């Protein structure tokens, strides 16, 4: 963790809140992370498979630089970080003060089960007579009134659903730990009552997520809740889950049969009169679910998705759709079913559908999945009132375009400000934390705690292991002390065995600390059940014993394995426990930003506002990039003003240096410490040291030769129209008909991806032209209108204002024929089922976006490009702006097509990533880090090739392999490929592993 920065409050502990909390904690802020639920994880605790990987990967969000600050375990279980105080069942109730100096009031729900005493033994649930629908499985299965809210969560504290509890008292009687204290019988007070806490924070991040539309409240319910086999998309996710109602087997809820035909109905509760926006993610969710079903069933279940527009608008999504259709056989049909009925004869479902041509195309299915639209989270309204953050007409937080100068210290993160997939949520959360960090950094240190020195422990590294064993004697379990003692007696390294009473409870834990304090052991092995519960408590033992946490380990005696082998394995592991004493290299507190467009400038400002230096290297003579020619966005926001403001801030910021006409030439080093040379003005070579790099090299409108472009002045591109409208050289008043053609050279075999912003641009131009000349005929020829999120509102407005939208297919593309009175566009109209000829004054081509060539630049920094030559992210969902090695970031169009607002968010996220890295000041090398024994090394370089993080390099001068302990993540690939056992991973040494194996048998 970096220099102490003050405290931040993050509201909501879903993935967005986790991302923001980690961002701020890694940069040295104390973070209070609260969630109204009794568990963390939000919506994602219920979702296991994410597109486009069909898997998970959430753990990739964990810190890379100072790994030991954070519990190294599956993030779905929970987040444990030294700098983050987690408060569950807690809500924000009040906020006073000003940015940098807020006083917040937090309210924690009363506890009926004392979390300090509950060990998750499940006895209460066994005796509870009240059966309730399990909220974790959306009511598809049952649980007891006293239950574990999320089966995989740590800590696994039970909760009681007081709406259903009959206060019979069975659980209270049976609890062996006295953790349950029911109200009633005159005992009106709860043991742990509702509590209010006030605290000072510098900034607040609101990551309160989303909710789902409830079809039973709508005009068309599609039989939801009446027909058992009509399920929502979330319910299907639970059905597919191993912790789901049918334990992962795909069954119909009505009779448990495996369905043979499944249908998805898209846009249920989205894109309608009540909620005119698009929920952005449901198309991909439906595709993913259908692919999962096809994979699981070996292709035996037929899957049909009924959609309006299949919105696969992010970089890899169109490819995913193609795979879904071509490889997995998912069937896509463009239609909007109007109702679902029960079929008495078959017991199945009938879908009533009217096809394009107006003919009924009803079909029978066994199961129907409703793709439910998203709604603002339950708490958004209250939070808006408390914090004064405005809401848009649909009830989401307003997210101002610039976020600069808004004089607030409260920021919306993730989907609380609009509908986003995981990748976008993560980007927008990091963007929010970057803005929060600016406020906190500006206010500087409202907490005056000093960082405790981490390396001040007694030096035991050269001592012979002297192991103290702590044994948690569970009153529920057998007496294991004699057995452990006899094992200890046979191990020369064990010098003390202490049996403690229930260290899983607060009292037991404190008792253990007291007993350990001042003891001379130099290794501690704690035998307990569910040791993950204690990992965050290593620090406490370490403090009590003045012992580096590296020498403290836990062994799980609750898994039912033979005690002897567990204890012996634990002893073999702890005996070799050590910390590599090579120090992590120091971080260079400077960030290089390549590219001075909107993305680069925003990133540099964000870095500089966090107290670090940013250096912009721009190859053009001036800053601005694509923003120079852009006029307005679809909401009317003036880009000229944004450009001027941003350029001015960059020029006036003391933390930013700008080099124009400059090109990067070479770079050496790795994450935390790069040395890069660049040429200014063609000959002047400069060299700088920096800890991280942000590639903001942008992109450009694609060139085309399609549809007669270049042969006629009446055929223009979106960019040319934007420029002409801005300059006033084009007057829509002089024209009668304009035809816009979408997806030119895009979403086809030669360029697979969707450029995402062209539909919005065309809508913007169409509306602008209609505004100037209401009589103008505007035809938009499209394949799929990608007006995702709130931009759907403009699609609707355009239709209302008389813009005609004609769908075309790749097989029947429009043709542009030059005529004497301007070009004639021939297109097949699918609803009329005939070919139309439109004589037009202007044809506008949406040609899409290409990235600037960054392959060689990325390669200089050991990063790469994807199939489309955009920057290759480490993970499009969980690490969406960083390269695998953790020192290189990208933003804006270099990452993939995105609009200005999204570019700015990605720029702040990239800056946040860079600041996370350079502000981390590891006191030592993380415990599980690779090393090398030079005496055994034959320089075969196999280890270098095996390292995905680029942490191993050959130092040609010394003739030695070098390891960058910051880049190394401790995966052990290098040690496994080394033929000489020269490469090793600390705490997973060969000798140690072999002894553990021996101990196991």
């Amino acid at each position: 963790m970096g220099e102490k920065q003050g405290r931040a409050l993050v509201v909501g502990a879903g993935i967005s809140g986790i991302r923001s909390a980690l961002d701020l904690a890694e940069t040295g802020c104390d973070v209070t992370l609260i969630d109204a639920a009794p568990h963390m994880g939000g919506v994602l605790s219920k979702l296991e498979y994410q597109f486009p990987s069909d898997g998970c990967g959430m753990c990739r969000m964990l810190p890379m630089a100072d790994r030991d600050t954070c519990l190294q375990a599956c993030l779905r279980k929970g987040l444990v970080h030294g700098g983050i105080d987690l408060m569950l069942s807690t809500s924000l109730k009040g906020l006073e003060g000003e940015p940098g100096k807020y006083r917040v009031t937090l309210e924690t729900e009363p506890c009926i089960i004392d979390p300090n005493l509950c060990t998750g033994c499940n006895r209460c649930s066994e005796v509870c007579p009240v059966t309730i629908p399990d909220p974790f499985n959306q009511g598809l299965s049952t649980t007891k009134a006293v239950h574990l809210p999320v089966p995989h969560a740590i800590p696994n504290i039970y909760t009681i659903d007081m709406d259903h509890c009959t206060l019979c008292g069975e659980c209270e009687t049976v609890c062996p730990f006295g953790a349950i204290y029911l109200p009633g019988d005159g005992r009106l007070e709860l043991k742990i009552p509702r509590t209010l806490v006030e605290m000072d924070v510098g900034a607040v991040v609101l990551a309160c997520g989303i909710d789902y539309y409830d079809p039973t409240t709508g005009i068309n319910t599609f039989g939801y809740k009446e027909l058992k086999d009509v399920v929502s998309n979330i319910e299907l996710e639970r059905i597919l889950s191993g912790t789901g109602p049918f334990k992962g087997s795909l069954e119909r809820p009505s009779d448990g049969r495996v369905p043979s035909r499944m249908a998805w109905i898209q846009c249920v509760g989205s894109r309608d009169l009540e909620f005119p926006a698009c929920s952005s993610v449901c198309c991909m969710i439906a595709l993913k679910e259908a692919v999962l079903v096809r994979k699981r069933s070996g292709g035996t279940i037929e899957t049909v998705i009924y959609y309006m527009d299949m919105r696969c608008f992010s970089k890899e999504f169109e490819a995913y759709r193609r795979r879904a259709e071509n490889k997995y056989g998912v069937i896509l049909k463009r239609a909007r079913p109007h109702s679902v009925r029960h079929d008495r004869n078959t017991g199945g479902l009938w879908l009533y559908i009217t096809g394009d041509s107006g003919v009924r195309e009803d079909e029978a299915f066994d199961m129907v999945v409703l793709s439910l639209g998203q709604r603002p989270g339950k708490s958004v309204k209250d939070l808006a009132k408390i914090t004064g953050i405005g809401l848009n007409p649909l009830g989401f937080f307003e997210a101002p375009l610039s976020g600069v100068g808004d004089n607030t210290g409260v920021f919306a993160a993730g989907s609380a400000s609009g509908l986003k997939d995981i990748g976008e949520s993560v980007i927008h959360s990091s963007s929010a934390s970057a803005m929060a960090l600016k406020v906190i950094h500006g206010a500087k240190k409202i907490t005056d705690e000093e960082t405790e020195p981490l390396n001040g422990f007694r030096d035991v590294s050269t001592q012979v292991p002297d192991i103290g064993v702590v044994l948690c004697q569970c009153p529920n379990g057998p007496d294991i002390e004699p057995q452990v003692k006899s094992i200890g007696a046979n191990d020369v390294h064990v010098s003390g065995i202490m049996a403690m009473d229930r260290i899983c409870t607060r009292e037991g834990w404190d008792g253990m600390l007291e007993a350990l304090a001042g003891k001379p052991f130099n290794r501690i092995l704690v035998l307990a059940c569910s040791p993950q519960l204690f990992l965050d408590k290593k620090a406490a033992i370490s403090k009590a014993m003045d012992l580096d946490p590296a020498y403290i380990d836990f062994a799980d005696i609750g898994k039912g394995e033979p005690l002897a082998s567990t204890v012996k394995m634990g002893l073999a592991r702890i005996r070799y426990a050590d910390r590599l004493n090579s120090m992590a290299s120091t971080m260079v507190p400077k960030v290089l930003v390549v590219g001075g467009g909107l993305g680069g400038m925003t990133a540099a400002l964000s870095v500089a506002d966090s107290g670090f230096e940013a250096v912009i290297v721009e190859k053009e003579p001036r800053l601005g990039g694509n923003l120079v020619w852009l006029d307005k966005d679809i909401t009317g926001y003036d880009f000229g003003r944004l450009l001027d403001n941003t350029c001015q801030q960059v020029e006036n910021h003391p933390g930013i240096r700008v080099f124009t006409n400059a090109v990067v030439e070479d770079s050496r080093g790795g994450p935390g410490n790069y040395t890069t040379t660049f040429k200014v003005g063609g000959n002047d070579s400069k060299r700088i040291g920096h800890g991280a790099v942000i590639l903001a090299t942008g992109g450009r409108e694609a060139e085309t030769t399609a549809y007669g472009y270049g042969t006629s002045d009446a055929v223009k591109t979106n960019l040319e129209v934007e420029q002409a409208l801005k300059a006033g050289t084009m007057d829509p008043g002089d024209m009668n008909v304009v035809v816009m053609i979408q997806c030119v050279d895009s979403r086809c075999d030669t360029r697979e991806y969707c450029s995402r912003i062209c539909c919005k641009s065309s809508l913007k131009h169409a509306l602008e032209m209609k505004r100037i000349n209401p009589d103008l005929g505007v035809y938009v020829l499209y394949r799929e209108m990608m007006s995702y999120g709130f931009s759907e509102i403009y699609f609707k407005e355009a239709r209302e204002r008389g813009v005609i939208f004609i769908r075309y297919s790749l097989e029947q593309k429009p043709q542009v024929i030059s005529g004497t009175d301007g070009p004639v566009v021939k297109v097949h109209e699918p609803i009329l089922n005939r070919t139309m000829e439109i004589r037009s004054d202007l044809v506008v081509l949406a040609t899409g976006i290409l990235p600037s060539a960054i392959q060689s630049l990325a390669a200089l920094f050991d990063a790469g490009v994807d199939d489309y030559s955009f920057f290759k992210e480490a993970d499009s969902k969980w690490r969406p702006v960083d390269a695998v090695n953790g020192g290189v970031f990208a933003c804006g169009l270099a990452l993939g097509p995105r609009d200005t607002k999204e570019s700015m968010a990605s720029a702040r996220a990239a800056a946040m990533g860079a600041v996370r890295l350079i502000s981390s000041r590891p006191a030592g090398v993380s415990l599980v880090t690779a090393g090398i024994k030079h005496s055994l090394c034959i320089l075969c370089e196999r280890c270098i090739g095996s390292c995905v993080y680029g942490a191993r390099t050959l130092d040609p001068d010394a003739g030695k392999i070098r390891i960058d302990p910051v880049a190394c993540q401790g995966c052990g690939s290098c040690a496994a490929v080394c033929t000489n056992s020269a490469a090793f991973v600390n705490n997973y040494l060969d000798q140690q592993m072999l002894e553990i194996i021996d101990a196991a048998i």
Partner: protein
Amino acid sequence: MDNFEPTIIAFVCNWCTYTAADLAGTSRQKYPPNVRLIRVMCTGMVDPKYVVKAFLSGADAVLVSGCHPGDCHYINGNYKARRRVRLLHGILGRFGIDRERLRLTWIGASDGIEFAKVIHAMVAEIKALGPAVSDMKLVI
């Protein structure tokens, strides 16, 4: 022979299968006590010599289990494990070890039930195979 209780060494990755094993514990999915979990950061760090050592020390079977393809915390460690297990299947015969005794599975963090199932099935199959007898006495 009826009383034969095989010993299975399971190298499980810290991120996915270990989580699943833990989930099996917390959701009270009983699995036979024949398995000894050895938690490794990644299946990609399971050196073939660990597997051979396990057999030579007397294990009746070895399970290597990690994240599903694409889910590896370290990007591609599980693919490395897959290649190594394939190679090991090729050479285990020379140690007198039936290749059936080395398994590779992908068990995700939420698949507690799947983990219990895999262990049940493996114990049953190894019981049927009988104890492993290595005809080579190597010292590693």
